[in-house]
């Protein structure tokens, strides 16, 4: 079960970063432009764009360009996928068990 669901992992991996979580939290209130989203962060635009792309690739947000302004919005499909909330919990516990297994089998080798 180590390869649980790649898509789902992508969705939750995107949540692992505080900047991306903040962006999602902002977008949960409604669409916003990149400039507006980047404003609270002390971060160069290219770095910020990496976060935006990751959120887009993992399916959390959609972006569209109108003129020179790129607007981001929440992608409801991903939220629906994340509603498989129990799946998220499962992924967490699978991960824990993977790491425990690795830890004890490595520790065992060291003891021998």
């Amino acid at each position, binding site marked *: *079960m180590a390869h649980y669901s790649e898509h789902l*992992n992508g969705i*939750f*991996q995107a*949540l*692992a*970063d*505080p900047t991306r*979580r903040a962006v*999602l*939290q902002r977008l*949960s*209130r*409604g669409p916003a432009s990149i400039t507006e989203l980047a404003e609270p962060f002390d971060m160069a635009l290219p770095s910020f764009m990496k976060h935006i792309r990751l959120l887009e690739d993992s399916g959390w947000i959609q972006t569209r360009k109108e003129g020179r302004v790129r607007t981001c919005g*929440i992608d*409801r499909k991903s*939220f629906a996928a*994340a*509603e498989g*909330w*129990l799946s*998220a*919990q*499962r*992924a*967490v*516990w*699978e*991960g*824990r*068990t993977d*790491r*425990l*297994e*690795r*830890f*004890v*089998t490595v*520790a*065992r080798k060291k*003891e021998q």
Partner: protein
Amino acid sequence: MLSPAFDPACDLQISRVIKAPRRTVWRAWTDPARFEQWWVPAPAKCRVQEMDLRPGGAFITRISEQGGEFVPHLNACFLAVDDLERIVFTNTLLAGWRPAEQPFMTAIITLQDHEGGTHYAAHVMHKTRSDRDMHAKMGFIDGWGTVIGQLAAQVERLS
């Protein structure tokens, strides 16, 4: 030993055979220094604040993400600790059985001898769906703002 019924809507069950003796797995779980090394995925770091292995004992961990300061992670209470066999904990209660603000889950960890090492199982029971359904009724997007926060706290980085 009480074995609660499995509710597919709220529970998850993980079991596998780990190629290590039961004592080694037990120690990895119950020795804070060892536990800290696997509980959260790298590069996040876990720190055990309290691990009082007895019914009613505190089980409190903190997490540091991206080299930041350690922030609260799990605040739970042990319900049962049977040497080498079983650990039951919940965050519906805090240390000393004090009711928690945001109850969420109970986990039952069991270890059994197996010819290949240790049969390890985790049965995790969550609250009913009712508050999630309420979220949906209150407004899909607004509700999710809160859910993201909760997920962020509970769903860790998956390496």
